[in-house]
Every structure is written in C-alpha cells, then in structure tokens.
C-alpha cells in the first residue's frame, strides 16, 4: 500500500468513480421516470431491504468499534496470556465473554476476527462469535419481555443453554486448526493492515473502525438484498397446509430465520408471534437465526471462507433442531 504522508492528497481513479456515479444516477432517473418503482414487488423488496440494513448497520459498527478498541488499546501481553491457556478453558471463557458483549450477530464477527488475529485460539474466537449474539443480557432481556405470560423463564433459559451448546460445539468442531487456516487472507490493502499507530490512537481506532465497517457493511447490504429477494420468492403462505409436526415446525422456522435475517436483539418479538408453531420450533428460530442467516452467510464467507458456512450449518442446524425438540417435549 502506497502512503502519502500528512497531506490530504488522495488519488482516486476518476474514470471508474465517474462511471459508477453516472450509472447510479441513470438507474435512479430511469426508475423514477418510468414508474418501475411503483410495482408492488419492487416496493416490497426495497422496503424489506432497507429495513434489514438499517437495523443491522449500527450493530456492525458497534462490533467494529469494539474490534478497533481491542486492536489499539488491549496490550499484546494480554492476548499472549490468553493464548497460553488450554483450549478447554478458552472455549467456556469465550461463552462467558459473550455474555458481556451487547452486540448482535453482525457485530460479533469483526470482534471474533480481531481476537483470533491477536492470538486467541480459533475455537474460542468462534465460540465467542456464536455465543455473544444469543447470550448477551440485552437479548436475554428482550426474550423475557417478548414471552412474558408465555413460559418466559423457560424460553430464556432454553435460548441461553441451547445457544451455548451450539456455540461451543461449533467452536470446537470448526476452530480446531490454526488461525491462518481459518481466516481468509485479506487482499493487499483491504481490511486488514499493520498499524504502528504512529498517527495517534484516535486515528488508529478510526482507521480500524472504518476498515471493518467498509468490509462488513458491504456484505450486510448484499445480504439484506438477498434476504429481501428471498422473502419475495418464498412467501410465508407456502407453509399453509404443511403438517406442522415439531420436526417440520422447527425446520420451517429455522429456514425462515435464515431468510428473515433479523437481529437477535429483537427477534424474540417476531418469534412469539409465530403462534401457529409449537414453542420448541420458536426456540429453534431464536437459536439458529443468530448463528446463520443470509447476511451472516456472506459475512462468514468473506471472513472464514465459503466452506465455513456449509460446515457451520452442518453442525449448528442438527443441534438446534434436536435441542429444540427436547425443549418442546420438556416444556409442553
């Protein structure tokens, strides 16, 4: 990466920038003038797309802030000490750490990546990434509030316990290798960069925050667009007439969790409205959604590689389903 000291002289390749701007203006003008945006399907997609992105981006940024602060302010010796701990202590420790971070799933990815880069065992980093969106106090409180009058305590305990099991199991199963094998190597000048922090800590944090936001934010936008298109393509009334056993109910809601791509801090209010489905199926929705959805699939693919997504699904889905079936049998 070529750096230019101190002055604000940035050279951007003007032709692509001008071309993109012109294309964007032309697209917007065409849509407005032809009335193409008046179609019901287009309006549906744009509204759902925009709403998913608006909900997710602040949490992506929160995670980017945490990641940047870790990078700049947490001393190397702390990570060295944590890295020397046995993995069997790091993984449950990561679960406990996840309870302290009020981030949803989008925010935990950059934090986990930063922890792994700084020497935390990959299994612990992955465990943290999967545990934080389910076990943090905001999520558990929102789950309790949403289910008040309807087995609230059981749902909170079930979500926390099953979420921890999924996180630790997936962390162990997928994080057994070295960090270099787990993380996708960033392209030159993109996203990851060595810092000597000579420009000052505030600027260093700003640089990291901007880089993480730029990297993750694009994937959230793409994921939001895919989720919106998927909602149009797979209507909810497709399940009408399907015999809802606990197994099919759990599978259907896990599929919807994947497509809806909601944030874990508010998804309990959505799950509680699925009154057609048994409680166990609703728990499967609440446990699987923060682990894997459309936008997370893109985030994971860019951070850990495309194969990671399939391996995570293969580990998390059966555990979430079996756990929710057992929960349903116990509670009901």
């Amino acid at each position, binding site marked *: 990466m070529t750096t230019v000291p101190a002055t*604000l002289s*940035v050279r*951007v390749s003007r032709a692509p920038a001008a071309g993109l701007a012109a294309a*964007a203006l032309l697209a917007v003008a065409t849509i407005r003038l032809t009335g193409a945006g008046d179609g*019901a399907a287009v309006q549906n997609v744009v509204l759902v797309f925009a*709403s998913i992105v608006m909900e997710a981006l602040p949490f992506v940024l929160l995670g980017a802030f945490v990641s940047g602060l870790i990078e700049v302010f947490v001393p190397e010796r702390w990570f060295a000490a944590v890295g020397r701990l046995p993995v069997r202590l790091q993984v449950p420790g990561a679960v406990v750490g996840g309870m302290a971070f009020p981030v949803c799933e989008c925010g935990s990815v950059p934090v986990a990546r930063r922890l792994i880069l700084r020497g935390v065992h990959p299994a612990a980093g992955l465990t943290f990434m999967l545990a934080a969106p389910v076990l943090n106090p905001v999520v558990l409180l929102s789950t309790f509030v949403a289910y008040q009058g309807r087995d609230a305590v059981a749902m909170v305990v079930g979500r926390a316990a099953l979420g921890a099991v999924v996180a630790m199991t997936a962390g162990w199963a997928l994080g057994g290798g070295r960090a270099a094998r787990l993380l996708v190597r960033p392209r030159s000048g993109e996203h990851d960069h060595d810092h000597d922090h000579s420009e000052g800590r505030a600027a260093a944090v700003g640089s990291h925050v901007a880089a993480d936001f730029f990297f993750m934010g694009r994937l959230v936008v793409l994921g939001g667009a895919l989720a919106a298109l998927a*909602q149009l393509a797979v209507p909810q*009334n*497709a399940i009408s007439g399907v015999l809802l056993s606990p197994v099919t109910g759990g599978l259907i809601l896990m599929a919807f969790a994947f497509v809806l791509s909601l944030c874990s801090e508010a998804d309990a209010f959505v799950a509680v*409205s699925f009154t057609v489905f048994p409680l166990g199926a609703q728990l499967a929705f609440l446990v699987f959604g923060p682990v894997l959805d459309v936008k997370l699939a893109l985030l994971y693919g860019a951070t850990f590689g495309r194969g990671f997504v399939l391996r995570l699904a293969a580990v998390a889905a059966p555990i979430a389903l079996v756990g929710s079936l057992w929960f349903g049998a116990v509670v009901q």
Partner: protein
Amino acid sequence: MNLVRASALVAWALFFAWLWLSGAADRYVGPRTAWVVPFGILLLGAAAVLACLAATSRSDRARPRDVIGLAVLLTPMLALVAVPEPDLGALAVNQRSGPGGVPALGSAPPPRSPSGPLSVVDLQEASRSAEYALRRGVRDGRRVELLGFVSRAASGAGGDFDLARFSIFCCAADAVPYVARIRGAAGAAAPRVDAWVRVRGIVRREGDRFVVVAERVTTDRAPENPYL
C-alpha cells in the same frame, strides 16, 4: 482509501439523521427497535469523525475496488431515492396470509388500549377470540371508523372488499398483516387494490367472524406511519 471509507460513514450518518428528523424511520423499523436510529446516528457520527481524523493523518491511494465498495454501501440510499416511501401492500398481504386471511405464521397482536378506537387488528383478533372481542368491545352494532388499504378489491360497485393494515415488531421484514372484510356501501365505487380508504360503518357478526357493513367509503392519504 481512508477518505473513501470516511465518506461512506459520513453519508450513512447523514442518512440516519435524516431518517430520524423526518420521521421516515417509522416506515422501516418498529417501535421496539426505533432506538436503533438515534443509536446509529451517535455511532456513525463518532465513527465518521474518527475516520476523517485517520484520513487526514494518513492518506493513501484508493483503488477502483474501493469505489465499487462505496457504491455497494450506498445502494440502500440510492434505492430509496429511486423508490421513495415504499409500501407493503396487497401483494405482501397475500404472501403473508394463510387460509381465511389470518397471518400464515400466526400472530401476536400489538398491544391495544382497552378503550381506544377499534382498528382492523381488533376485528381480526376478535374473530378468533371471544375473550378478545369482549375485552375490546367488538360487538354487533358498534360503529367504527377504519383506515387501511384495499388488499382484495370488490368485483363491482358496492361489492365486498378486504381492508388491511400491517403491524411490525422489529422491522418491515417481519410485518404481519391484519385484514377485515368490508361489506361495500350500496352504489359506492369499488376502491382499487392498494388504495388507502377510510371506512365508516357498523360491525356485524357473521358466524364466527366480525365484518363491517360500510355506510361510507372515502379515499384517504396513507398515514405517515403506515403500521399499527
């Protein structure tokens, strides 16, 4: 590159500020998660300031890939410029409703004041629950005034049509439809699908369902916040 990234953060910070100040955020996020918008303004503003600081202290060459990345990040804003004030309408009602017009995945109706005016939500929920009907005072002969959009049009003048509203919890992605059957006012022109109308009429029980016999149907503007 730092300047390109800082630009993205500044743009989003300004966009979130516009959403909040204009009230446009109500169209996209639900009441339980509305705090995300001012929260986002604070975070994006702080990040934009720090990113600009980083850009001034260390400047570097931006690649075409970064410009494309910026374009991707700004796509939601461009989409809303191209399609301002998008709505969920009859298509979404049909996609999210099961047999009988009830929400396909079930419903937990939004909290309602026991003494407030009746809405489409109350009529649908009262049709499913006698206890709800009693609690909200949904009964034969009660006069109502409903505002909603037409989700199923009448076949002709004075015919029956369906009036719908959405309720959201987290964001528009989880919107749940509520539908009330309207017996059309005699001689009244059939409102078109997706038109917002105000129906004044009388509640009537037909079997286990509450419908509204319209006395007057007028077109109306969509409310600023289209959700209940």
